[in-house]
């Protein structure tokens, strides 16, 4: 991003400030803090200014809202917020906005706002967005919130601003689930976390000294399916996030793995192997216990995922020699057909929300990288540049892909825009993080 490139120190300072805010806001072990660093931006990112919001009330403002909104918009890769120290003026209301100032700074949009205290723990978050070139207001909104709700309100503001300026719904009010592994004296501790999409508020959902893997969100965002090896063998669980109550969905002999919710939330596609160790795709209805077997092949058939219309299952199979992606009808009719043809290793498919592309793990000249496959045209575009990139998950608005990578010998998360132009690394303060999964849009 143009401005970031000119002021790298300021950029780092902003990320450091961001991290401090994250540690204030977090509940849960500090060891699981996520820290986001932007390492590759887009020169065409739209220059904007998010002016520090005015505070009208007792004591301190409950949140530096401009910092949060600027961070959200910057992380999307589409916007380059300017540093507040470079601002000539800091308008707090529409009257105070001098468009010639902002034209001088070559800013396309100015976002201003205020937090006004109305009573005991009652605030109003107000914001306005101005088109600098046209000299007009394009958005004006207010949201009531308590101190505790202020982060959520600010993310909602980011969503609205993003949608107004790009036409695409924002994904800033979503969450991510991920697995963290820390090393004790002699053994590992595995934790399944859910955090805000910006890494704040990590909460432990499950914890074990045996591996936890393959988290998957229900379409209403209320449940997480995952695999746990507690008890010494793999089993699939579905856990209700609000209560922590969970159901053991499958603990059959052999492998129980790779749970994936259907778009209507009623079925889970899972992988079972039985005693003979032959991995195949099955469907299971956790409410009724009903099962349906979808593949019957001595190859490894695994990593099932549903198409957005719920009619197809895409999965990894090595029936042709090495792992490739196949598709079959969820009702079990017909046989699987292969959909990836480029490269000798394509695995772990996920669908974009429009159902037209796959994001997957692709072996690119010896390196395991995230790639986008256009299903219609059968083209493969490599999006990441690591050596051990894996577990891609797509934001519900289709703009960003979060995935796991390794840097400096540690497991970290990273994000790349679907067009490959923007990239970020998301590191944990301690331990390894892996298997990030982006939640659906909040159901409200």
């Amino acid at each position: 991003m143009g401005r970031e490139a000119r002021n790298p120190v300021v950029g780092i300072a902003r990320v450091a400030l961001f991290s401090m805010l994250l540690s204030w806001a977090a509940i849960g072990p500090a060891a699981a803090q996520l820290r986001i660093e932007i390492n590759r931006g887009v020169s065409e990112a739209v220059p904007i200014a998010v002016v520090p919001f005015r505070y009208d009330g007792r004591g301190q403002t409950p949140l530096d809202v401009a910092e949060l909104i600027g961070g959200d918009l910057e992380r999307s890769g589409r916007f380059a917020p300017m540093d507040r120290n470079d601002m000539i003026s800091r308008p707090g209301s529409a009257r105070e906005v001098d468009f010639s100032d902002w034209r001088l700074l070559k800013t396309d949009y100015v976002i201003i706002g205020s937090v006004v205290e109305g009573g005991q723990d009652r605030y109003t978050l107000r914001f306005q967005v101005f088109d600098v070139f046209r000299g007009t207001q394009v958005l004006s909104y207010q949201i009531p919130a308590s101190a505790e709700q202020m982060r959520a309100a600010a993310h909602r503001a980011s969503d609205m601003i993003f949608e107004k300026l790009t036409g695409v719904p924002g994904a800033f009010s979503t969450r991510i689930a991920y697995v963290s592994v820390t090393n004790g004296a002699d053994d590992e501790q595995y934790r399944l976390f859910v955090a805000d999409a910006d890494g704040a508020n990590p909460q432990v959902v499950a914890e074990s000294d045996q591996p936890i893997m393959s988290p998957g969100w229900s379409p209403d965002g209320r449940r997480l399916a995952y695999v746990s090896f507690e008890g010494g063998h793999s089993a699939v669980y579905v856990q209700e996030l609000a209560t922590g109550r969970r159901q053991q969905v499958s603990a059959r002999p052999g492998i129980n793995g790779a749970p994936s919710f259907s778009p209507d939330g009623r079925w889970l596609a899972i992988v079972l192997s039985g005693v003979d160790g032959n991995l195949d795709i099955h469907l299971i209805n956790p409410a009724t216990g009903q099962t349906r077997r979808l593949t019957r092949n001595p190859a490894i058939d695994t990593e099932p995922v549903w198409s957005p219309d719920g009619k197809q299952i895409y999965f990894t199979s090595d029936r042709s020699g090495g792992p490739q992606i196949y598709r079959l009808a969820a009702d079990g009719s017909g046989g699987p057909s292969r959909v990836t043809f480029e490269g000798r290793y394509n695995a772990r498919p996920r669908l974009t929300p429009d159902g037209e592309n796959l994001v997957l793990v692709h072996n690119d000249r010896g390196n395991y990288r995230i790639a986008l496959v256009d299903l219609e045209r059968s083209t493969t575009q490599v999006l990441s540049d690591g050596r051990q990139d894996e577990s891609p998950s797509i934001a519900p608005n289709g703009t960003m892909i979060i995935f796991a990578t390794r840097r400096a010998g540690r497991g970290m998360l990273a994000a790349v825009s679907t067009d490959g132009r923007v990239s970020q690394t998301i590191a944990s303060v301690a331990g390894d993080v892996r298997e990030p999964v982006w939640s659906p849009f909040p159901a409200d």
Partner: protein
Amino acid sequence: MQSKLSTLLIICLILAGCAKGGTQPDADAADTAGVAAEGDRSRQAGLDTGGLDGGSEYLEPGMVAGDSALIRETVIYFDFDTARIRPEFSEILAAHARRLSGNPRLSVRLEGHADERGSREYNIGLGERRAQAVRQVLMLQGVGAAQITTVSYGEERPAVRGSDEVAWERNRRVELAYTE
């Protein structure tokens, strides 16, 4: 007199060996004096001297001379992207097979693993394929299916941390874990 003593000693040792059953930890196997089980092709221990000499190999039912050293090897390694059992491990697996088929009360858990490269659930499949390969070898040599369970950890429990050939080599493995 001396032959009566020898016979007595032999009987005592046979009884001691039977009492311990099949759960003798591998580390102790070589330290106990030898026991001749019926139908076994083991050599006889040298017991006709008064004091204990260095001792000799402890062989459980079904095992042959040299097996106690072989069964101390409980990790089988694999080449990249394959579940083929390398020839250098056949002797080791044969010894384990003899031990297991000689004692149907013994069970073994075959834990399959893969190196870290590639996707996690696919690697669970690779680890399972390796565990199944070892399972097949054992069953072909007389081990009962009921004595074997397999589990795959994929890349989730590496033996060696690192992202280089050395680490990857040490992580592509099946571990044999005996249970009662």
